[in-house]
């Protein structure tokens, strides 16, 4: 069935992701269904905080290919671990062969990019009076470096951009890419993002007293804050048949506070309603919501309130990936999108990992165990960030 030109149905043609629970979408799904966490107590030798982390094994030992060596930093090693997936590479090569390298867009999200390199270089600059030899801010920390690195890795020569709206970054790129394809700027697009462990976010969230000293427990009565994780994920979007497609989405701003959510989740609800309007769906059409679910007391309360206002109290089953991967900040949008797509494909709803006792004060149907969802057509994925930046994506299972 062909789509009208102004409302493209975009297949999720291929996807790849690395996260704390293992390399690839398969291990992410397995961990999600089993309710298994990838979080571990902080064992970084460069940070002493009492926290649990979604640290990806093997980042330190990963070497970039020689041609990509100028971009070396933790964030790009993480990105490379995802990009090098042979099936994903093959799918992108096929898109390039079909459309041309200049007709495949690249839109990525990151919050802190390769700032870990600058943290190390600045400490050196302070001690030695000069930047370390070989430190290259443009190729590591500068936000655009993620896309320029990925473009070089994938052989893409189309228009590119990096969105940086904190924790909604790699969700918003799906909608930006959709508009690029809708208006004919490109025929296909690689979207996604990467964010890696760094002192800035670890000590920053600690300063805000939002870090949990336990593994994070989204929507749990005993939740005490976030666990920070790292991840990189990429999805190839094109007007091609696929098991799951991007139906649309909605965005909004809280216009309330830089780091605290609106208490009733006003902006979050607006994004969800806008997503429903954009896709012509009613709340009852959505079979599952992958919540942002960060596990801070205020965030989960605000999101629960927003979910109840849109779907009715306990009106839709929800779960969060944060108990599996940790909060991967600028990368969580694409991680959640990949998991939501898999839930649609499998017609199975993943439980919220690390949940022990759902908070009775939250009007949400939090999944405690995997639940079959035969006949589910649509699912939503929510991501909200600092600055009140909200994004809700809607995915559709193919007939």
């Amino acid at each position: 069935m062909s789509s009208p030109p102004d409302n493209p149905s975009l297949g999720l043609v291929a996807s790849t992701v690395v996260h704390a629970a293992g390399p690839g979408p398969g291990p992410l799904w397995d961990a999600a269904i089993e309710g298994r966490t990838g979080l571990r107590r902080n064992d970084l030798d460069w940070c002493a905080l009492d926290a649990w982390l979604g640290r990806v094994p093997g980042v330190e030992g990963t070497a970039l290919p020689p041609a990509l060596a100028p971009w070396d930093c933790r964030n790009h090693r993480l990105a490379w671990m995802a990009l090098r997936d042979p099936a994903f590479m093959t799918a992108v090569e096929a898109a390039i062969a079909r459309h041309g390298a200049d007709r495949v867009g690249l839109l990525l999200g990151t919050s802190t990019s390769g700032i870990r390199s600058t943290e190390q270089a600045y400490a050196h600059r302070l001690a030695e009076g000069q930047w370390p030899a070989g430190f290259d801010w443009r190729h590591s920390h500068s936000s655009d470096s993620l896309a320029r690195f990925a473009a070089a890795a994938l052989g893409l020569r189309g228009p590119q951009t990096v969105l940086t709206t904190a924790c909604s970054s790699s969700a918003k790129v799906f909608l930006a890419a959709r508009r690029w394809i809708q208006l004919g700027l490109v025929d296909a697009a690689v979207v996604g993002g990467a964010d890696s462990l760094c002192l800035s976010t670890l000590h920053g969230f600690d300063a805000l007293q939002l870090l949990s000293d336990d593994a994070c427990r989204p929507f749990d009565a005993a939740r005490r804050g976030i666990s920070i994780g790292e991840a990189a994920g990429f999805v190839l979007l094109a007007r091609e048949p696929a098991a799951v497609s991007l139906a649309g989405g909605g965005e909004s701003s809280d216009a309330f506070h830089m780091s605290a959510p609106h208490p009733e989740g006003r902006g979050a609800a607006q994004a969800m309603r806008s997503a429903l309007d954009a896709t012509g769906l009613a709340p009852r059409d959505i079979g599952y919501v992958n919540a942002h679910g960060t596990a801070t007391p205020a965030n989960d309360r605000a999101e629960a309130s927003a979910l109840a206002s849109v779907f009715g109290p306990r009106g839709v089953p929800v779960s969060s990936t944060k108990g599996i991967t940790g909060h991967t900040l600028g990368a969580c949008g694409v991680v959640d999108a990949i998991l939501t797509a898999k839930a649609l494909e499998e017609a199975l709803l993943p439980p919220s990992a690390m949940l022990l006792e759902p908070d009775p004060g939250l009007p949400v149907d939090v999944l405690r165990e995997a639940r079959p969802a035969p006949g589910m057509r649509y699912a939503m994925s929510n991501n909200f960030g600092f600055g009140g930046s909200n994004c809700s994506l809607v995915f559709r299972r193919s007939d």
Partner: protein
Amino acid sequence: MNPLRFGLYAAGIHAPGLDTLAALRLATREGVPAETLAPAALPAPAGLPANERRRASQAVRLVLACVERALVDSPFAADELRVVCATDEGTGEVCLQMLESLATNRQVSPLAFPNSVQNAPSGNLSIAHGNREPGSVVSFGLESFASGLLCAVVDATADRRPVMLVSYDPAMPQPLAELLPVTRPTACAWILAADGVAGKAAPLARFELALADPAAAPASPLPAWLPAHWAAHSSARAIAALGLLEAPATARMHLPLGGRTLVLKRVAGVGA
């Protein structure tokens, strides 16, 4: 792709020696380098609650100041504009403050951290105007304006809503200025809309935007009326593009963007 057509309805600018659109147009006509040594003071953002106003970083003040100037002549209310912010290293002094803490006692200020995200000015802008429309922030090195312009015009066309595009570079304190030599802040704000969105309001000028092969459309040099060292400012391209207001009706500017070149072309006619 068909070229995307849009109108520029208002603009604001904040840069040393270029504090009004009229000053920019004069510099364009006379070809005189604009920069003065007089500091361009950044006012405390009046629209923010008192606490936020005190905490406002230089980047937040810069963005809010040039947006206020653009809004003076805007046919659209501040809270109906979608927002696209475009910046290279958009945190400046806050980035340094964080790095300093992390390299020494690791006592990060809880006030600094939320301001250390690239979308802090965008978030504060939404708070200042009670604007709940979507906001995006793009950061693409020296191609940040090109990236922001494309996203803004795409938003304006696809969703048929007016858009505020803000291109800015806060000053980088030493020693970060050794990495990115932006020593004084520059910014400008464009209020734009697709044809037919602004009712009877007449645009300052109308433009077309298209993608081209870089080999056929090499990057436009910065005009002589801008200080040469502003080449390190991503927003200098946005300021240079405002110079098209004084150019012939077919003038164009080529802006590299990733593997392509964005062609911004002035087209004849004003009015909706």
